[in-house]
């Protein structure tokens, strides 16, 4: 839970870029963790994981020990990640079928899952699978399994929607993916912790970027604790 990492402190003067955000999440993943990176922005985190961290990547379509994206001659249609992008295999990898793969996830064996989101509630509810638009073609994939499966769920997203309202909300207006499952929210303007405590979870601003913490918390119409 420490915010003492050089990447983050160097970046305190302005909002984080998408690359810096990925770097920050990567640095926060404990050495030796088993991690699932969701499709989209979270995939970028893998670029900043160091060999010394010895992080093992899980892809829910049946593999542990996934390596970087494959290019050129290394592309193999039968070795893909959950986003259906060709990837590579690292030493120590293993393959398993879909039921075993989701048992691994649902059984709570992954240490961290990093997901994108439309909204996160102050209680840790996640909305990331559907905007609820009536004409949209629905698709859920592994989102609901990922949401409830890992020991910790980190969300990566921009803090504010296009209309300027925060995407951390008292209650999700979009259809939820899972209830009370998110433990941290990494955004361009700040990192938030959702801490479990008696009497209900509380939202803590661990660090702000490009804005003073005191200013940032005023943007919410519910209490946000500034980490001491």
């Amino acid at each position: 839970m420490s915010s003492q990492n050089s990447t983050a402190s160097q970046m305190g003067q302005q909002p984080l870029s998408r690359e810096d955000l990925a770097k920050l999440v990567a640095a926060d993943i404990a050495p030796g963790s088993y991690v699932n990176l969701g499709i989209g922005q979270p995939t970028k985190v893998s670029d900043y994981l160091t060999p010394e961290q010895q992080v093992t990547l899980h892809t829910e379509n049946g593999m542990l020990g996934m390596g970087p994206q494959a290019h050129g001659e290394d592309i193999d249609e039968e070795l893909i990640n959950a986003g259906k992008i060709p990837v590579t295999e690292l030493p120590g990898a293993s393959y398993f079928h879909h039921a075993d793969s989701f048992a691994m996830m649902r059984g709570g064996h992954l240490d961290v899952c990093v997901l994108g989101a439309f909204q996160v509630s102050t209680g840790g509810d996640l909305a990331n699978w559907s905007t609820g638009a009536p004409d949209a073609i629905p698709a859920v994939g592994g989102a609901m399994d990922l949401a409830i499966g890992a020991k910790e769920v980190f969300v990566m997203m921009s803090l504010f929607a296009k209309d300027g309202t925060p995407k951390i909300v008292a209650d999700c207006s979009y259809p939820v993916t899972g209830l009370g499952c998110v433990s941290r929210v990494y955004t361009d303007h700040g990192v938030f912790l959702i801490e479990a405590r008696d009497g209900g979870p509380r939202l803590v601003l661990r660090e702000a970027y490009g804005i003073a913490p005191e200013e940032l918390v005023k943007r919410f119409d519910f209490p946000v604790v500034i980490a001491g």
Partner: protein
Amino acid sequence: MTEFVDTAAEAVAGVRDGATVLLGGFGNAGQPMELIDALLDSGTTDLTVVSNNAGQGDRGLALLIKERRVRKVICSFPRQSDSWHFDAAYRAGELELELVPQGNLAERLRAAGAGIGAFFTPTGYGTSLAEGKETREIEGRNYVLEHPIRGDVALIKALKADDVGNLVFRKTARNFGPVMAAAASHTVVQVAELVPSGSLDPENVVTPGIYVDTVTALTPRTSQTQEVKEA
């Protein structure tokens, strides 16, 4: 006992109109393209298809949907950048969709093969996909009751089969193959290669022959050529 047939057409000859067909594959990986092509040629229609996706581009399941041979799709992720045939059929109201979280899809198939009557899963609790389903709190956690998905037929792709139908798969093309093989009354497998009994190490068999009813082999050369072309 496993039967071996020479062509994909013979392999799918038993699929009847109205059947529930479990289709292996995650995207194109592990999708039994040749069996699906044979199913297209056979004219079988009014199918319920259980698969992770609902077809991509102009191949495999996408073509079955294009030809309106599928009445209903049970899947987790129909929407893709190239799922235009699904999109069109769905928007036209000519295709029913049951959307299932991917892990529940896998576990419901596993339950069918394993003789489990129903199971409580945490996935989907409190979401719209669990609406109307029985829920229960067990040791402080909330669960949804989910039921098995059984198939009349499974069409899957493996790497090798031996003389008694034991299968091994290749990399992430394994995906739904083993659970679908066990969840269907009749399992049809296309393999790249047939090998004699005793040439697969018994420790490494992924799907034992007891789950395999019909096998058809594509020659390894054809299969490799095709893979390179697709990549």
